[in-house]
């Protein structure tokens, strides 16, 4: 009898059920999409911020001081210690290797360049452009092309196995070189594949493959620094603590959180005789900007959840209020308050589940669209969210109906049937 009452109610009052169901569906759609965006916004914005440049740097442990003013290296390049290029793929083996988006080794050397008879001493930096490295089953294409996506090239990127070079914009203007020219670097003729504009020290330098720089320096396998771009969690009070002062379990928790300092520590563990530091200008500010954006979206999501809950409640209240006469009839026939209320609650649950399911699907689609149109990448909704969303939908629908059901149940059947009140 109970089941038939509920079933008939759905069959005969399609319009009302459709209205309430639509409100629930829309509410759940908005809630799902916003939760999806809010949980993913940190990762998305982190990737956008990574375009500003690397946030970690690995240097040799026993290195002498940098003597560098305005991007010009003033100490003999053979001075100090080096890292070994062969150790670089090991970066892919650290705990947080999935958070490493790219890295680029650097080896600055001083060279004399010659163009149309005029000589000039400049800094040549050997690096990877887009080199394929593999470690175990992991492979990555890495280099300055991915660590510094905002660099602009007039011409083409050099290929990593070639001898071609990039010339900094200001330097190119001074010596009158353009893409496709030949230039004498330390006595060898090298083709110029493009002109590089970065707005930084690189504008006065030459960028070449790591091999070329090692050959000029006559130190095969040498690397001076490695710039690493990693997705990190903004540093909080726990992240700022000194890991040396931590005990076992707490240390493990710190180690397994992608704080910049924890990733830096893991880098020094895989690269022998190295020290890794966060580049504070990038890493620290990135943390603040990320925290702000995440906080903002979180608060907006709260507002969205609140608005959807209110919309669902309003729709349910209206739907139930319209059915006073029905309640009056049931009560006149002898139904108790509990029976009447349970019928309404059963209907609300059914509506919430159906609306929740459809809304979840629509919300996932909406989040996907938002991700595609704003970030050019996927925002995927975890299926784990489904039961959570359904539970919230049922609770909100219940809460929204509760007041209206209470009022409906309390009605005197005589007044309700006469259409008064």
């Amino acid at each position, binding site marked *: 009898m109970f089941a038939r009452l509920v079933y008939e109610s759905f069959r005969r009052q399609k319009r009302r059920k459709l*209205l309430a169901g639509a*409100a629930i569906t*829309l*509410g759940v759609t*908005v809630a799902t999409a916003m939760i999806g*965006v809010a949980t993913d*916004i940190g990762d*998305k*914005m982190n990737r*956008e*911020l990574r375009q*500003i440049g690397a946030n970690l*740097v690995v240097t040799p442990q026993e290195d*002498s*001081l*940098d*003597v*560098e*003013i*305005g991007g010009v290296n*003033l100490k003999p390049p053979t001075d100090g210690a080096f890292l070994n290029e062969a150790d670089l793929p090991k970066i892919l083996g650290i705990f947080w290797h999935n958070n490493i988006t790219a890295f680029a080794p650097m080896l600055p050397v001083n060279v004399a360049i010659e163009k149309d008879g005029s000589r000039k001493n400049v800094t040549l930096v050997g690096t990877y452009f887009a080199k394929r490295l593999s470690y175990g089953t992991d492979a990555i294409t890495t280099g300055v092309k991915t660590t*510094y996506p*905002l660099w602009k090239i007039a011409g083409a990127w050099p290929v990593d196995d070639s001898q071609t070079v990039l010339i900094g914009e200001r330097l190119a203007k001074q010596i009158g070189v353009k893409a496709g020219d030949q230039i004498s670097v330390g006595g060898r003729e090298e083709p110029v594949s493009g002109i590089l*504009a*970065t*707005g*930084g020290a690189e504008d006065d330098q030459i960028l070449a493959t790591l091999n070329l720089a090692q050959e000029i320096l006559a130190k095969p396998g040498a690397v001076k620094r490695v710039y690493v771009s990693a997705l990190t969690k903004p540093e909080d009070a726990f992240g700022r603590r000194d890991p040396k002062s931590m005990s076992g379990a707490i240390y493990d928790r710190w180690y397994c959180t992608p704080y910049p300092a924890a990733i830096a520590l893991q880098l020094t563990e895989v690269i022998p005789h190295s020290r890794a*530091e*966060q*580049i*504070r*200008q*990038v*890493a620290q*500010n990135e943390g*603040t900007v990320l925290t*702000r*954006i995440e*906080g*903002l*979206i979180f*608060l*907006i*999501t709260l*507002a*969205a959840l*609140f*608005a*959807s809950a*209110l*919309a669902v409640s*309003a729709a349910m*209240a*209206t739907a139930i*209020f*319209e059915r006073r006469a029905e309640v009056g009839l049931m009560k006149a026939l002898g139904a108790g308050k509990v029976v009447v209320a349970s019928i309404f609650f059963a209907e609300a649950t059914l509506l919430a589940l159906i609306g929740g399911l459809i809304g979840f699907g629509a919300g996932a689609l909406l989040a996907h669209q*938002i991700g595609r149109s*704003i970030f050019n990448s996927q925002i995927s909704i975890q299926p784990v969210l489904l039961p959570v969303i359904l539970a919230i939908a049922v609770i909100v629908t219940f809460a929204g109906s509760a007041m209206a059901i209470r009022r409906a149940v309390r009605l005197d059947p005589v007044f309700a049937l*006469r*259409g008064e009140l």
Partner: protein
Amino acid sequence: MSGPVSDSGRELAAKREKAPHTSMLLRMMVRAAILRRGRAASALFAMVVAAAVATAMLNLYVDVQAKLRTEFRNYGANIILVGRDGASLPSDALARVDSIVAGHGIAAPFGMVVARTSDGQPIVVAGTDFERVRQLDRWWKVSAWPSLDNTQSSQNQGEVRHPSSELSPALVGARALAVVSPTNRPFVLSFQGQTMKVTPAGTVETGAAEDSRVYLSLNDFVAWTGVRPETIEVAASGPPDEVTAIMNQLARAIPAAEVRPVRQIMEGEALVLGKTRSTVLAAAALVILTAALCVLSTLMGWVFDRRRDFAIMKALGASGRLLNGFFAAEAAALGAIGAVIGFLLGIGIAAWIGRVNFHAPVVPRFSVLPVVLAGSIAVTLLSAILPISLLRRVQPAVILRGE
């Protein structure tokens, strides 16, 4: 019936004749609101919440870029002035830069030379204004700022200084400290035959080139090396076109300097701001849509509920136009009142979010008010007109019989 009474009756009739219809309309609206307090209040509540949420969202959307821009200024300089071909900048360069960026940012001068430590190692020594750097480069992790501990140096500015006889406080890079003064004792630097006794007042850690340098106050630096600053770093705030305008002004004011934008920072900033704004816009659209729907369903329920009022008015001979006008006026009044209350509430919410999240209140934008007002009235009108147009087709008798 006596004369005076009929006179007063006529007077009353004449008065009513002259009285505008609006007073009746007003009374009907007020009575309707008072008699069905609960339903009217819940409709108004929905309207207020929707208007508040819409106001807060629009306010945030308008303000989010300005708020995030100030966060991005923590990345430091976005403009760099360098003397052409490594030459020093003119001595009044900093004053000119200050007059251009006054109120829109901060500038810090840097002079750099390669000096030698006592055992002959080369080291980069820089002279700068610590107070300015502190504001410009907030990511520097500094154990203690020299200028703040040593108030004497600022008091001594006018006097002739004897660099060799006095200890100059310095900010020493974390890596440089291990070389020049592992035990944190005063050390000697020499540049072109001139020596300088320096005491490490604090250390700086940045993870970049700064770690290998020693920073002196500009006065000490100039007195010792005779080299004037060749770089001024400027953090100019504002949208891209304002920053470009500042760059152009700087280039005109100081022809001896090359003015360069720090492209990485400026482009990264533009990128992140644009994406955040789009996300907030999408979210705001969703939230406002949901809120509007909430109003729509509440109000439609309310109007539908009053079909008996509607039927009685119709049975008493009210024309369709009058009924439409009545319900529309009622809806518009509700929308307007709800919008104004909601607007005030929404400004409060936006200010609170600004305080909690950005530690700076979101400035109320009164330009949002007409939009919220128009939107609210449109939604309420829609939710009144829809049920009315349905009810108009029904005979009053049917409604009054409760069917």
